[in-house]
């Protein structure tokens, strides 16, 4: 038990160290009007010029918010067409040692939308459906571009506070290149190397059976870019992807590192580091208590098992609720992986979520339902939390008798509209999708379990899709056309609403001139505001999902004695 907590603390500390190391570089990437400094900066600048020059987009000029948002939408659309082509033409394309045929339409559309929207919901098994070509030149390309678009969104929101009276919000192509090539790529290379050192597979040879393939590199970008799509169906639970407990800890640390670094970089961008720390603390406040609940629930014995079966912890064995968990990681580290992968929108798994204790499943569903803002997806998580901050500051600002403002920018009707849309489309999509699935017998039958657990499986699928998480309560058989297309629609709706609204929100803020700060201004770096920001996230999440959660994990958890039963 104690060992589990120590492991968790050490892993989180590692995440923080990696994050702090990234912060200066991430900070330098935002002001695109200034060339990057230092040797590294000059090299990066040259790469940027070449890449953008080759695409005819150099010199990069500032885009108006609408143009920027449209560019992102177009980039999604192009990704959709190209990736769909790759999957449908798989049989004709090279590097297909198993001679796998074209991916069926339903699965293909679902998979393409899933990887373009940074969701990585996988309604297929990687090793038996996709050729190495499709994995490397199809999915992995999207695993860089999709999170890069999320980071670009965050850049625009940050510029909302950095710029004043500006009609433009930066250049979309330049931002995406910077995020993908200068941020995600080096981090992915670093993590790949570390995973290979731990023994993860990384081969270019023929792939037959579970022998090899470019596993480490695929896994690394899946985690660094909060994608989550695994090379194998078993995702990070597979021994070739995560061979050791340290590899498991590294993956967790890299999932959390970039979202943590983003909070601190935000403070540096706006030249007020306290604000960045406040956002990080709000994240911690939202993350740690549910994590504790999850770990407690998973490390406790499974009461569904008959008495007399030893489930305790000893020197050689990690006890607790072991169903669906890898013995080499143990229950504590598995629980932390679950929390990190659901709180960030990664959705990778090293344990089967369907087998989590009811309270454990509740926490996983809770993190996803909050809209992937607790650390959240790279870029989109911070941008979403800023939208929540606008909500919190609006009410708090009125309460101190001033027109609401955040970081010097006044919050008016337009900002409110965009923030509300960005934050409310995912929950509404989740609820509507689940409602349809619940009453269509063919869809409802996909959930193999009766009662509340079956309902949790339906709810989890739509929550995961609409919030672009991608993990699953894996019992669900979501390969039917109504499921693949339904979830694809949910993924697209959630992603588009979030990205477009947040970019426009950033643009709207960038056009404003700052308001002067005085002691009448609501301080947004103190404990009170941190509490309010976390409170706003919890309140909106609770109000939207409490009834649904009551019929799912809560009903399950309250059945019989409280605690780890299923």
């Amino acid at each position, binding site marked *: 038990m104690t060992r589990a907590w120590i492991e968790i603390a050490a892993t989180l500390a590692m995440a923080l160290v990696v994050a702090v190391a990234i912060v200066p570089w991430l900070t330098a990437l935002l002001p695109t009007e200034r060339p990057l400094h230092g040797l590294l900066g000059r090299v990066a600048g040259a790469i940027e010029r070449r890449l953008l020059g080759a695409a005819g987009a150099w010199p990069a000029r500032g885009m108006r918010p609408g143009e920027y948002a449209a560019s992102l939408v177009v980039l999604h659309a192009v990704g959709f067409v190209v990736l769909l082509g790759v999957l449908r033409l798989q049989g004709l394309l090279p590097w297909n040692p198993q001679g796998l045929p074209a991916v069926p339409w339903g699965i293909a559309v679902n998979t393409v939308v899933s990887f373009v929207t940074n969701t990585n919901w996988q309604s297929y098994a990687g090793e038996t459906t996709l050729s190495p070509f499709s994995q490397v030149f199809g999915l992995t390309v999207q695993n860089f571009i999709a999170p890069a678009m999320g980071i670009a969104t965050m850049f625009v929101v940050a510029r909302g506070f950095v710029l004043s009276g500006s009609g433009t919000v930066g250049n979309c192509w330049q931002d995406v290149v910077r995020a993908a090539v200068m941020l995600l790529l080096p981090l992915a290379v670093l993590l790949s190397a570390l995973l290979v050192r731990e023994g993860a597979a990384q081969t270019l040879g023929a792939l037959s059976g579970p022998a090899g393939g470019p596993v480490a590199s695929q896994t690394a970008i899946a985690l660094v870019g909060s994608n989550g799509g695994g090379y194998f169906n078993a995702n990070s639970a597979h021994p070739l992807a995560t061979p050791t407990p340290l590899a498991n800890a590294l993956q967790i640390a890299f999932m959390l590192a970039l979202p943590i670094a983003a909070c601190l970089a935000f403070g540096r961008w706006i030249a007020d580091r306290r604000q960045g720390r406040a956002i990080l603390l709000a994240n911690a406040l939202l993350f740690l208590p549910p994590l504790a609940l999850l770990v407690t629930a998973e490390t406790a014995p499974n009461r569904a098992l008959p008495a007399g079966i030893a489930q305790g912890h000893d020197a050689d064995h990690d006890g607790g609720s072991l169903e669906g968990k890898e013995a080499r990681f143990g229950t504590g580290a598995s629980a932390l992986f679950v929390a990190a992968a659901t709180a960030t929108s990664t959705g990778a798994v090293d344990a089967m979520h369907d087998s989590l204790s009811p309270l454990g499943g509740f926490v996983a569903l809770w993190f996803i339902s909050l809209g992937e803002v607790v650390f959240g997806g790279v870029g989109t998580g911070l941008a979403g939390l800023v939208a929540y901050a606008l909500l919190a500051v*609006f*009410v*708090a*600002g*009125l*309460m*101190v*008798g*001033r*027109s*609401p403002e955040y970081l*010097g920018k006044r919050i*008016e*009707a337009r*900002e*409110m*509209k965009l923030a*509300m849309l960005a934050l*409310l489309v995912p*929950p*509404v999509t989740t*609820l509507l999708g*689940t*409602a*349809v699935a*619940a*009453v269509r017998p063919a869809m*409802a039958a996909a959930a193999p379990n*009766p*009662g*509340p657990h*079956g*309902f949790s499986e*339906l709810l989890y699928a739509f929550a995961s899709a609409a919030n672009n998480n991608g993990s699953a309560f894996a019992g669900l058989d979501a390969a039917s056309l109504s499921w693949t297309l339904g979830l694809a629609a949910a993924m697209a709706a959630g992603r588009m609403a979030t990205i477009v609204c947040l970019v426009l929100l950033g643009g709207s803020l960038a056009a404003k001139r*700052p*308001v*002067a700060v*005085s*002691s*009448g*201004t*609501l*301080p947004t770096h*103190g404990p*009170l*505001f941190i509490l309010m920001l976390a*409170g706003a996230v919890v*309140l909106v999440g*609770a*109000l*939207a999902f*409490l*009834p*649904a959660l*009551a*019929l799912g994990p*809560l*009903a399950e958890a*309250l*059945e019989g004695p409280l605690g780890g039963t299923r």
Partner: protein
Amino acid sequence: MNAAPDRSRGQAGVRAGSAAIAAALPGALRKLDPRRMIRSPVMFTVEVGAVALTALAILHTSGATEGESAAFVAAVAAGLWATVLFATFAESLAEGRGRAQADAMRSMRRDTPAKRLAGASRAAATEEVPSTALRGGDHVLVEAGDVVPGDGEVVDGVASVDESAITGESAPVIRESGGDRNTVTGGTRLLSDWLVVRITADPGASFLDRMIGLIEGAKRQKTPNEIALDILLAGLTLVFLVVTATLLPFSIHATTSAGRGEPIGLAVLAALFVCLAPTTIGGLLPAIGIAGIDRMVRANVLATSGRAVEAAGDVDVLLLDKTGTITLGNRQAAAFLPAPGVTEGELAEAAQLASLADETPEGRSIVVLAKERHALRGSEIETLGATFVPFTAQTRMSGVDLDGRSIRKGARDAIVKHVERLGGRVDDETIATCETVARGGSTPLVVADRARVLGVVELKDVVKGGITERFAELRSMGIRTVMITGDNPLTAAAIAAEAGVDDFLAEATPEAKLAMIRRYQSEGHLVAMTGDGTNDAPALAQADVAVAMNSGTQAAKEAGNMVDLDSDPTKLLEIVRVGKQLLMTRGSLTTFSLANDIAKYFVILPAAFGGIYPQLARLDLLRLHSPTTAVLAAVAFNALVIVGLVPMAMKGVSYRPRPAADLLRSNLLVWGLGGLLLPFPCIKLIDLLLASMGVP
């Protein structure tokens, strides 16, 4: 701040309470019209629900449909109607409070006969016409005893006017052509003399008409903050609509897979929706806005729009005229500083003699000070047989000649010249005294008898009592105070330091004022100022909150966005308070409304789903009597809390100036935590009541 007059008015309001409630009822019913209701998306949705449930109850009663008992559906429908009605009632009540005032004003607007002149002179021919026939540009003659027929500018004459009908101030005021006291307001009465007035407003567009329209809420437009809040509330309402609507399929799925229980009923869904939707703030929002304008009117300030009232809460720089706001209107003699070889009594006596016939406030204060300090009784100048030498622009001195003495007092330069012309010399010590006095922010007045300098009288600007504390309060709220004065920088600095303002503008010209406002605005500040003169108009137009004095010129009033009927420059502080209170009331009620929801979930969810999953009864923290009473109690609480908060919406949340962080902490504690906890005991109480009434 200045809460005393407000309180007395508040008590009068309570006495008139029952009558006001009766008067508000018809208005409350009229506001149920869906075409008006749609302005508030929250309450509109609730009204639609109420109509639908009523129809359902009728169908149930007639046996056309089955499901929940007809009585239960009807009871929930009644709860929804009550919620809507209480909200419209609150708005109607808020409007009613202003209506009495508006009626009083309308009676003044009654037709008064006017003497229209053929030209802009008293000598021109007059014709008797009703005041409604007057148009802008017409000239009228108003004589003692006449009622001024319309708003206008005095082009000729001087008269004393009783403006109590507008301002409530009974002392008559002087109105004259030219200068800054040349406007008259329709409905006021001339007490003496005569005026030729050029009418400036067409009928229906006068100051009085605007005021009536505003008080009655007829011209009320949503303010920017209200619109943003409406979007927040509409968004939440939409989410709650989806949350409740999807519960029907969810519960169908649950009953099928659990094999027991009933899907959630429509009435319970409607009940859950009305409990979740932010009805408390949604219902009280219009009332809060109207009450804010009403509180301004009660402070005798007329705002041209709700937007202006709201902006008052945001102001963080106040430009305050020194005279009348920071200091008492006039300089007062504070000390006699004799020259070498002269006693203080001698100087006081001479200064008093020189001031006996001086009717300026400064002169009078010298007489008073001499009397207080040296028991010198001033006697009538005629009985002394003295000759008064009045102040002229050429000599820049005044004084008195008697018994061979020739006493003069005046500014240092003037006396130095005077003495030197008579062959004398002002000693160095007196010069030094003058400089010391000036550095201290006072004005030195030198007194001489022929060529002999007697000493210096210190004329001091007296800073108003308590003003320093007020500025400190404002500073704690993050509001900078800037003193505007025509004094030289030295004097201005001294007074600024004594009064405790943050900044000052010395030797202020209208251009300098305008530049200063622009500078603050470019730094992101919102600036408020008061003004009365025509030369204030550009600065007033530039300021975010511009309060024109009612005694001021028409140009100033047009340029400002508020008019202070009392013409009291310190009113700015009161205006800021009303503005802040308005915003705080909205924020606090929104927090309260949302915090309430958590408790209602704990009441309704076990009641709705306990039949399907009995284990959910564990969420029923209150151990309520039955699902029926639980749902009804929640709906009843939701409706009653609107009524309970009406007085708060009218009065505004209590407020005293302090830093934003402190305000947030206390309001969050009261309205956030209070909102979280209050529903539990209240709903339990209503549940007990319903159970004791035999509700199953």
